[in-house]
């Protein structure tokens, strides 16, 4: 019998602490597959974020540093400058990257740091229990926007790919989703692209992944998939925003 799919060798855990229906586990699996395919585990230094992925070092078998909220792009910048021959992966969520760490991501992108960024956008603060994020949709109810997010007083969701595309030193920006098999496959290709870009010395590359948070959104896993398909994609259109290769 041929083995068609197996757990990536770089993934060290059989189960994660992610909630049922959460998208982080899918992203983890894709990262593991791409690490194995490119054979980069032993040259990889990963920054773990504050948020649900904070214990990434329990899942991926590589060197890891656990950063303060929002600061991973600054931490990664220094690591990449010290070890330009190593592979630096920045993993951030939407509260981390698009709220408390906006300065760090914008300036790392603007300097054109040769790093790969995986930005998991689930439109909510998951770990703290479902508060309004910078990417929360208009009308979306959260524990800190109990009547739904309004433009007045709370502003509109921040579109990170579109924002970073204005910076000339960003080399590759794509938004994907993991709400269907087809989109999961596309996401894997995008992860591969942003990894390959760093290995080829191309420069700052980021993939924004729309991801489910059924517990934070207070819906079933099935409804969470529908929420991405019917609402999130309208606000955050999928596609390649920059490819300067």
């Amino acid at each position, binding site marked *: 019998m041929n083995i068609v799919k197996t757990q990536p060798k770089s993934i060290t855990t059989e189960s994660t602490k992610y909630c049922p229906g959460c998208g982080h586990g899918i992203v983890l699996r894709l990262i593991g597959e791409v690490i194995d395919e490119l054979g980069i*585990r*032993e*040259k*990889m*230094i990963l920054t773990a974020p504050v948020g649900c992925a*904070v*214990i990434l*070092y329990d899942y991926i*078998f*590589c*060197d*890891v*540093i*656990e*950063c*303060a909220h929002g*600061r991973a792009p*600054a*931490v*990664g*910048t*220094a*690591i990449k*400058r*010290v*070890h330009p021959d*190593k*592979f630096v992966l920045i993993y951030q969520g939407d509260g981390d990257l698009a709220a408390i760490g906006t*300065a*760090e991501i*914008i*300036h790392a992108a603007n300097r054109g740091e040769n790093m790969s960024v995986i930005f998991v956008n689930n439109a909510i603060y998951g770990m703290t229990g479902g508060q309004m994020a910078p990417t929360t949709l208009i009308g979306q109810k959260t524990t800190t926007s109990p009547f739904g997010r309004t433009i007045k007083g709370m502003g509109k969701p921040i579109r990170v790919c579109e924002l970073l595309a204005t910076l000339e030193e960003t080399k590759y920006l794509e938004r994907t989703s993991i709400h269907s098999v087809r989109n999961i496959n596309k996401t894997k290709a995008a992860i591969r692209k942003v990894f390959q870009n760093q290995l080829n010395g191309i420069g700052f590359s980021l993939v924004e992944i729309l991801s489910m948070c059924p517990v934070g959104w207070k819906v079933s896993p099935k409804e969470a998939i529908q929420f991405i398909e019917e609402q999130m994609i309208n606000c955050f259109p999928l596609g390649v925003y920059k490819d300067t290769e």
Partner: protein
Amino acid sequence: MAENNNTGSQIRRVLMKGNEAVGEAAIKAGCLCYFAYPITPQTETPEYLSRRMEEENRIFLQAESEIAAINMVFGASAAGARVMTSSSSPGISLKQEGISYIAGAELPCVIINVVRGGPGLGNIEASQADYFQSTRGGGHGDYRCIVLAPNSVQECYDMTMNAFDLADFYRVPVIIQNDGIIGQLVEPFEMHPYKPMFEKLPSKNWALTGCAGRDPNVVRTLYLKPPDGLEQLNRKLDERYKKIQAELRWAELSNCDKADLIIIAYGATSRIAKSAIKRHNNNGQKVGLFRLKTLWPWPNVELVEIARKNKDAKFLVIEMSTGQMLEDVLLSLMDVVPKKDILFYGMGGGWNPTPDMIYEKIAEVLAE
């Protein structure tokens, strides 16, 4: 443990600003990375290093903020490099988040604080009002930084070199607590080659270099498990801090053997006090100076010894703050000197006493 402030034959006498000497010392001590953000009165250091790091083919990066700069320090240190940042008071406040993470992750680094007046934006004059912030940890959580306090350009140079060694030896952040006067001071000093304080430094086998041929290294700042994980870390840190307190207490004593009055000061105020003390000594008055070179650990054992030797002596603490180090003096002497004999002369952030003012204050105390 003795300081290492001189060695080798290739000594050159040069004229430099304190803020520049700090930069050159970092270069000589093998600092691979420097990250900073401009702020008065420390900007000469990033200006100096922007040129010198380039010449030496090392890493200089002007960060987008103090917060980014200290997080770059965190990253570079975790990657195994010798790394430094510098700033002045409001910028150091911003760095506290990162310093707490660096202390928690047991990483070495060097931080220069050229203290200016506060609170708030305060002003750009010299001050010593960041004493509490530097000596009590500064950020959240239970930690300490080693704090060295130079009072000359020579010591800016020597202590910066020492700071890198101490940081690597103990795996803690080391702060050079400068002030706007010493940072801006231009005076000649002996520029000597770097000679390490320790014969051997511990291996950085914890550094992030990619896990080829070994198990992964994880630089952790979160301890959720086992249930007592964080407790274990804090106990370990506490033991290390006690070891540092036992091994590293630097103070300079002058005329402290048979004194009626001992002045206690550090940094710029110790220089100013010195001129005033000299005039009193010339008049035959027995006034001594206890000058701190480490603010943490605090040389309490040394001060108590002086108090025991000079049974009826009074102590006068002089600071450019409204009384911060004063608390450490009171704590050190609580069992040996009556509280009424511990006096204070200070001014809040952003202005400094003159030699005449200190001379008058000493005369007043002696006349009591």
